[in-house]
């Protein structure tokens, strides 16, 4: 979801250039399907593919990717695997990308989709998660052998920034309530600062009601009554937990797209950032999340007509239970789903490339 404030990225000859980072696991096949679909729908977007090899210790690959994103302003990415058995000097590539480009807001919109059977109905939660600091600062040291300290950093500037983003997003989408998720009863200074910043920003948006909830109570409420939540804003780690819980509630990692926004750049990916190593190249991955992420990308570069067309086609395909992939309990394959989406586009949309 784009908040009208940033200038649209540069266009050459009416066509947009977007960086594409396939990533690992199911990333490459999903990236291929996105390109296939875009070509079929004649979307004026050209992809500049940058491969990042997660097994290499040098940071050249990821730096190239970052440079490409700086050049193009927009990117679509798959998740890059982090082998946590490597020494701590090897930082997570995904994390590096987010912090270098200062993509401070991770936005995940979890909605119940028609045709997907879940235990809870009518969920519509927008999760706004601080993406660059908090527990993910990667500042760790071992002072004494056997004792490791990990620093969680919360700053006033970043907390104010993310709170401001959350309230502006709520206002832009007509939402009524923002809930801050925290653990300030235990981490009094750190989460206390975050909460204070949220309260400060809330005072400038009188039409939006603001409340706060402790993270363990939040997860309990989410599994019993998720319909009570509207917009949720929180620091990095709690964002990780809450966004995964919400994604699970609406149907799983294959359905929810995610977006990372910064002042100048935007990177779109699947909401729960999974590599899906175990199902890679099996043609069973659910392409919905990645395709919906590409629709968010199209909205960002103001190609709204194409975005709505593809989104409509995806939603009509989701209602067909016989095409559900394994994660939704069906036996459909990825290519069948993509084919069905293309058929749906062809039957309703403008001129498309003949198959």
């Amino acid at each position, binding site marked *: 979801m784009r908040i009208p404030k940033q200038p649209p990225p540069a266009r050459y000859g009416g066509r947009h250039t977007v960086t594409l980072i396939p990533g690992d696991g199911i990333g490459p096949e999903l990236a291929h399907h996105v390109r296939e679909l875009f070509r079929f729908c004649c979307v004026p977007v050209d992809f500049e593919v940058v491969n990042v090899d997660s097994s290499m210790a040098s940071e050249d690959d990821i730096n190239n990717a970052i440079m490409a994103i700086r050049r193009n302003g927009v990117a679509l990415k798959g998740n890059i695997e982090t082998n946590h058995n490597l020494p701590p000097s090897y930082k997570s590539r995904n994390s590096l990308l987010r912090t270098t480009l200062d993509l401070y807001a991770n936005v995940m919109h979890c909605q119940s989709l028609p045709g997907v059977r879940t235990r809870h109905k009518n969920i519509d939660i927008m999760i706004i998660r601080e993406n660059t600091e908090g*527990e993910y600062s990667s500042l760790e040291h071992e002072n004494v052998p056997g004792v*490791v300290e990990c620093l969680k950093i919360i*700053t006033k500037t970043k907390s104010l920034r993310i709170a401001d983003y959350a309230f502006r997003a709520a206002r832009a989408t007509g939402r009524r309530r923002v809930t801050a998720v925290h653990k300030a009863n235990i981490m009094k200074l750190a989460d206390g600062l975050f909460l204070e910043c949220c309260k400060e920003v809330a005072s400038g948006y009188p039409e939006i009601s603001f409340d706060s909830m402790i993270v*363990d109570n939040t997860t309990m409420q*989410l599994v019993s009554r998720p319909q009570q939540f509207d917009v949720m804003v929180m620091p990095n*780690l709690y964002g990780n937990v809450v966004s995964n*819980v919400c994604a*699970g509630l609406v149907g*799983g990692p294959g359905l929810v797209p995610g977006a990372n926004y910064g002042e100048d750049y935007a990177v779109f990916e699947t909401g729960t950032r999974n590599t899906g190593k175990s199902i890679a190249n099996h043609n069973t991955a659910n392409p919905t999340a990645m395709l919906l992420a590409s629709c968010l990308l199209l909205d960002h570069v103001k190609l709204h007509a194409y975005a709505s067309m593809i989104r409509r086609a995806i939603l009509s395909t989701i209602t067909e239970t016989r095409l559900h992939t394994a994660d939704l309990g069906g036996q459909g394959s990825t290519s069948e789903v993509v084919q069905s989406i293309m058929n749906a586009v062809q039957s309703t949309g403008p001129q498309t490339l003949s198959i």
Partner: protein
Amino acid sequence: MVNSAYMKSISQIIYIENGLYKQCMQTVTLIPGDGIGPEISSAVMKIFEAAKAPIRWEERNVTAIKGPGGRWMIPPDAKESMDRSKIGLKGPLKTPIAAGHPSMNLLLRKTFDLYANVRPCVSIEGYKTPYTDVNLVTIRENTEGEYSGIEHVIVDGVVQSIKLITEDASRRIAEYAFEYARNNQRTSVTAVHKANIMRMSDGLFLRKCREVAENYKDIKFTEMYLDTVCLNMVQDPTQFDVLVMPNLYGDILSDLCAGLIGGLGVTPSGNIGANGVAIFESVHGTAPDIAGLDMANPTALLLSAVMMLRHMGLHDYGNKIQTACFDTIRDKKVLTKDLGGNSKCSEFTAEICRRIQDMA
């Protein structure tokens, strides 16, 4: 200390007669707590009496007092009772806001070094939630991690909070988790972590878990990222068995699992400490709005007491009481308000006692 253990074993031998093994009474320190604490504690005592469980209750109060040197501590008679009996049952404690002393739960934790918080989450037949067939246990490290309370303001507007992970604490909790799995016939232990981001700290925790797993080859050991656990937990909780994790993840996940089975009003919890001390407690609040009105639901404290019986080896009594409790809930005729009925706490308790007596 040696004497009392010796006396206990002697008295156990004396009681063996004609092949009938009569168990001697075991002492348990009971801390009723505040708010609805006293009502639910007496409900539990009544039910235990009906089941003729060999438990002798010693009631104690744990309101903090200032000891010599100005440090807050729990009253010495409470500490002495607990050190002697080794087993405690605790109701909900009020967290004071302006009393000047830290939370009682924290004080108890520090006094007895309660390093493991164990929460078995089993779906209660009869109390319907969107999730059925939940049967897992969360074991959470309770002394360090993100809750070390070490925070600093570096410069104005920048705060740092320190998460501490030590080798010893990680090894201790991992060993407890595997022991628990073995003693309770559980098949797998899953370590929950975020080692892709917190490489050194969670990496250390994970390494210790792996090392301990080597000594327990009969139990399957897996590792899973915190976000994957959360994602899978809300879609299919049946795939999890025993989960072991550091403090913060444990806090969030144990409450998430409690939410799956119906909330804190029906969830038991146990805290295991060093030196064999174990305190079982109900984790809900003091509910001051219904205190004294005979409306409270004693299920959480009762299930924690059942957990306590199992810990002490009194499985028969534990099973009997648990079955009576679950049967009452399944029957839906006599339920307290939070479970969807409109009976009083005393009626609910009486119904459970009746079932136990019918069973004998």
